[in-house]
């Protein structure tokens, strides 16, 4: 890597937190919980032009057991709500949640009998992304925000 020539010793001193966070933030495995329009935009995020793999989060996993970043994309209805809760519970720690789009964040302009008014009624959310649907750049911005958040975390906080 060229690092060895810079540093004469094969050892580096750092904190455990920094190493772990460095690994975590650059290799997030997202679980796309896509329900509606935003999921189509997310396909744009993973495809060639925007390319989420520049941020190390391209390994889309559909099993909650293998993911640490839950992307909720689209409207969550009352019928879907317990499913989302269950999927969040199935994800192992550490885990982070991005709420993508107006519907997931607040119910959007669907203020009616069947739509949950924001997924934070069900699960904790780390980053809200505005837009209906958000532009792909916005989603990438949210991934960067999560990375910044991970940098500040203590590895021991996650049980």
């Amino acid at each position, binding site marked *: 890597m060229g690092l060895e020539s810079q540093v004469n010793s094969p050892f580096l001193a750092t904190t455990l937190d920094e190493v772990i966070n460095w690994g975590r933030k650059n290799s997030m495995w997202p679980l796309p919980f896509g329900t509606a329009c935003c999921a189509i935009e997310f396909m744009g995020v993973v495809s060639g032009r925007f390319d989420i793999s520049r941020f190390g989060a391209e390994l889309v996993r559909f099993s909650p057991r293998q993911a640490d970043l839950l992307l909720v994309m689209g409207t969550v209805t*009352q019928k879907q709500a317990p499913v989302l809760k269950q999927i969040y519970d199935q994800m192992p720690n550490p885990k982070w949640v991005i709420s993508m789009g107006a519907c997931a964040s607040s119910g959007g302009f669907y*203020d*009616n*009998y*069947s739509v949950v008014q924001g997924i934070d009624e069900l699960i904790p959310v780390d980053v809200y992304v505005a837009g209906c649907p958000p532009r792909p750049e916005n989603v990438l911005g949210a991934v960067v925000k999560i990375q910044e958040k991970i940098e500040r975390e203590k590895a021991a906080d996650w049980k």
Partner: protein
Amino acid sequence: MDEVQIVERLKAKFGEKILSTYTFAGQHAVTIGPDSLREVLIWLRDDRELDFSWLMDVGGVDYLGYPGDDDREWRFEVAYQLYSLGKNHRIRVKVAVTDDSVSVPSVWDLWGVANWMEREVWDLFGIRFDGHPNLRRILCHDEFVGHALRKDYPINRRQKLLQPSEMILCERMEWA
């Protein structure tokens, strides 16, 4: 065939059973009672000159609070949109449903698509369909109380669901 002629033929054939006819913006509709629904739809489908082989849509309407007609005798309507591919014409057949104690005969055996669409009308309006093999809710969850698209259902009365719903496999696949 001109749609006016279709209405005329329907009137000639069924006479009293046609409760009213309706024309707006070049489209025509007839209103009938639930008892004659199957008879009329089968005739429309099988008549060679009419040839309404397609049932495009089944949709319910709740006329509660519709301005200007307090003397309306029925509260609900179920509208069947028929289309003939061979003759390229359309007609709308509406069934007058006085209230939710009246049920409408199901046409799921005539058109496969009616199965789900009738379930949707039941789910959202609470109109029963006689002879339907699997009249369950389709869009709202199973624990939903009331019927969401009725005019007296408040738009933001939310009903929470705590557990993912159990799903029941249909006894026979053609009913699903």
